[in-house]
């Protein structure tokens, strides 16, 4: 009955509860009055006959089982497929045992089927006993114990580096020829950024009480080389505009192409 499962679940307090739940959900095990599965029932039935399993009357067993299933069906509609398959199988077995074999029928005889069922029952019973004996043994962590204070093995790792002379030569070749196949890109060596100019201007403009030319603000190292000078001038001019916008300096140019003059913006 479902109640049996719930009691089973109550015992599971840890993560195994999930597993247990899955067991209950997936398996075809049905607990009916504490019986689990068809063979279980048969075992119990055979035990109540109090006879040696090997000599048990399979026919009587089958009749009882079928009667039980009938009763179970009457009480509750859903019955595990296992039970129904077993019931069908036992009904077939019963007919085999009762009716003489048809001529030319090469299927297994009722006796063979009965013998196998007896074997299965005996084997399950043996496994149950063995399982009980196994669980009855002394167990690690319950009856005997492993070392409590283990000492870790410290691992001393020595790293050995290797390289072959070929590695060496290839590395050198790679370095020496790297420039040959550099992907195409602009050399940025002679490029003075507006950020650099802004940084420089901010430091200088505070002292510029008088008008001075833009050129005065170029860094020394950027004044001679025409390429560098062009870049620095552009950056400095852009930075000046930025600072004028912020209201930190004033810009003046008297006529076209005349020098650009800068000075600190005076408080008005």
């Amino acid at each position, binding site marked *: 009955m479902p109640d049996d499962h719930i009691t089973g679940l109550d015992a599971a307090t840890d993560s195994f509860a999930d597993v247990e739940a899955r*067991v209950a959900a997936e*398996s075809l095990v049905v607990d009916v009055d504490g019986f689990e*599965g068809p*063979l279980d029932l048969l075992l119990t039935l055979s035990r109540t006959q109090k006879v040696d399993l090997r000599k048990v009357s399979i026919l009587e067993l089958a009749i009882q089982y079928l009667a039980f299933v009938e009763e179970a069906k009457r009480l509750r509609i859903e019955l595990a497929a296992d039970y129904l398959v077993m019931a069908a199988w036992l009904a077939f077995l019963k007919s085999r045992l009762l009716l003489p074999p048809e001529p030319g029928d090469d299927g297994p005889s009722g006796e063979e089927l009965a013998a196998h069922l007896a074997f299965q029952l005996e084997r399950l019973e043996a496994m149950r006993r063995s*399982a009980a004996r196994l669980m009855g043994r002394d*167990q690690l*962590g319950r009856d005997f114990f*492993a070392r409590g204070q283990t000492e870790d093995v410290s691992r001393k790792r020595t790293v050995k580096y290797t390289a072959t002379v070929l590695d060496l030569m290839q590395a050198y070749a790679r370095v020496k020829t790297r420039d040959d196949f550099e992907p195409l890109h602009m050399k940025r060596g002679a490029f003075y950024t507006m950020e650099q100019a802004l940084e420089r201007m901010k430091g200088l403009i505070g002292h510029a009480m008088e008008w001075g030319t833009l050129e005065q603000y170029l860094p020394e190292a950027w004044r001679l080389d025409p390429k560098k000078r062009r870049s620095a001038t552009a950056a400095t001019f852009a930075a000046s505009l930025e600072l004028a916008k912020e209201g930190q300096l004033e810009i003046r140019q008297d006529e076209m192409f005349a020098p650009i003059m800068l000075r600190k913006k005076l408080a008005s």
Partner: protein
Amino acid sequence: MSDKTDNAIESLFEAPPLAEQERMIEAILFATAEPMSSKQLADRMPHGCEVPEALAHLRKRYEGRGVRLVKVGDGWAFRTAPDLGFLMQKETVETRKLSQAAIETLAIIAYHQPATRAEIEEIRGVSVSRGTLDMLLELGWIKLGRRRMTPGRPVTFIVTQEFLDHFGLESSRDLPGIKELRDAGILDNRPPPGVKPEEEDDKERGQDDMFE
């Protein structure tokens, strides 16, 4: 380095005397909770040690003591004597009670290994839920064995060294009553009547029948 040089080095350093080897094994096995194989022990010890001999001596030395040297599968470990378990309540690890299904499945695998899921189901007469096998795998008591060379190549399950260690077994041949069960034919693989033992041919014939 060539073998020759290796040998030369070995012969330079003689293996320590047996009593010393025994001490070494004692120290190594005391330091760890997991069983160690002779091979693993030998790897940790100086060249030329007679590990199996030293182990035999050590085992004898601890006979009847509060701790014993036990063999677990192909490993060796020190374990407290089971008769002193009552002193250890504090060390006891609260293990969850296994479900009846799990215990039976474990026993079937141990006694019939390697066992496929279909075989376990055939023996128990009910389907084995994935959860039961998962739990046993998680406990480290069973592991996957080699695939069975039958149609579908089903996986098999076998018990582990941890299983042997947990139940104090030297090997799965020492399972309680296994000899009697084998002699009685209980452990035989006896297919149901009318079902031939699984072979490639059988399956094909079975399929042919279906299409006739």
